[in-house]
């Protein structure tokens, strides 16, 4: 299994690795996966009062594709509203990183991490979950996989 150039790039030059300070307000944290599965992603979103994602950070325990998926996710969400981020599909990550079929689940986990971070932020702000119900669709596999 040769690694795609894009996946390698995210590994060698990861974007937004790290964590926001624990006392930062306006941060939603999503922690998904499980060590027994070999995949754990922590994704943090710094969201302003207008609900726009200003910054993001990630840390991942997982294979190259998992690291690349979560790294790419932090790039994708910046500048988006929380609802737009929530609606992001794993298929976009699969396509843009050219993930092989056996690694699709890594992109699914990244999608879950974004959603978990948004939910966490909403909970902290006391905001309702309602817009999520509209955005919720099952994770898809891309047609040409």
């Amino acid at each position, binding site marked *: 299994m040769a690694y795609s150039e894009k996946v*390698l790039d995210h590994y060698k030059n990861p974007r937004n*690795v790290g964590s926001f300070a624990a006392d930062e307000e306006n941060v939603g944290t999503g922690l998904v*996966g499980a060590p027994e599965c070999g*995949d754990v*992603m922590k994704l943090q979103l710094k969201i302003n009062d207008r609900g726009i994602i200003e910054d993001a950070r990630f840390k*991942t*325990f997982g294979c190259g594709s998992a690291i690349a998926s979560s790294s790419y996710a932090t790039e994708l969400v910046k500048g988006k509203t929380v609802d737009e981020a929530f609606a992001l599909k794993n298929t976009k990550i699969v396509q843009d990183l050219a993930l092989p079929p056996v690694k699709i689940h890594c992109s699914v986990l990244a999608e879950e991490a974004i959603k978990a971070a948004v939910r966490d932020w909403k909970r902290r702000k006391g905001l309702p979950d309602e817009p999520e119900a509209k955005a919720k669709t099952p994770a898809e596999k891309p047609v040409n996989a």
Partner: protein
Amino acid sequence: MKLPIYFDNHATTPVDPRVLEAMLPYFMEKFGNAASRSHSFGHVAEAAVDEAREKIGALIGAPSKAIVFTSGATESDNLAIKGVAEFYRERGDHIITQRTEHKAVLDTCKELERRGFQVTYLPVDRYGIIDLDALREAITPRTIVVTIMLANNEIGTIQPIAQIGAITRERGIIFHTDATQGVGKLPVNVDETGVDLLSMSAHKIYGPKGVGALYVRNKNPRVRLSPEMHGGGHERGMRSGTLNVTGIVGFGKACEICMSEMAEEEVRLRRLRDRLHQGIAERVDEVYLNGHPEKRLAGNLNLSFAYVEGESLLMGLSEIALSSGSACTSATLEPSYVLKAIGVGEELAHTSLRFGLGRFNTAEEVEYVIGRVEQEVRRLREMSPLYDMAKAGVDVKSMTWAHG
């Protein structure tokens, strides 16, 4: 020192130049079929095969006539276990093996279960060694064969073959060992260890791929088998098919080289391997050895790096050829069953790396790899949420996780 570096000698080995040289004449000049009795082309090929048989037998203390050529150790394992099971079916239908065997043995046993045989898969201790009392207890009046590998391909652990052989001898049970990883690396003698069947492969000992052998004891007692391959009756009816003369010549030469260089090579590899281990352990914390610290192949090192997943580490070390027990590196997304059998927890199983040093590896390469492993483990730990949690004193195991 050239890149990429090859530290995966348990998967396969490069052909030794001396082996290649020995093989070459048999491609274009001495190309006869060893079974062609009627002309010199055949006689020359046959003579070369006989010479190889002697060399291979010598490496394991067996007479040349007890060597059966196959396409590799997988075929040898299939032939040994299925062959004995079918031939001695009247005598019994129970087979004993253990959980860290190579798939060639385990899947063969599974197939025999489908055919109505009973198989006991003995557990192993945390180093990968079977318990001899458990073996004794597992034997029943219906047991016909015990199959236990000499040395494990993932964790390098060496089984107590002589003691197993003593038990099977006493109970009149056939003993097969998959010696693929051990032959040519440590001394093996089939008479001294009570081994009745032994699988071996050329490409693990600097010979070509596509050829192996099965030692089949010819006396005290004589072991019979049902063949898997039917046809011209080659190899005394045990394995039909035109012999891979070039491969066999190479195999013989590879064994001859091992015979003369094995002792020195073992010392050299052990020194390199120990330096690799020490160098890494000095610079990186929370590194755990998988397998037995002493009873292991001299060139093998299998380490778990906590909080760092194996496939990402392999990707970071892309100019170094290694393998990992991580699920992400397997086609089936299952982590190493060998690590599981020795009780390595799943989080650590995903973090394992296997190093397999061999004849052509150097001290310079070892130093380079030590430095690179340290670099990539540090980088990945910086990226790891589990490392953060561990540093903060969070007990990762006690957390409930939202599954992806």
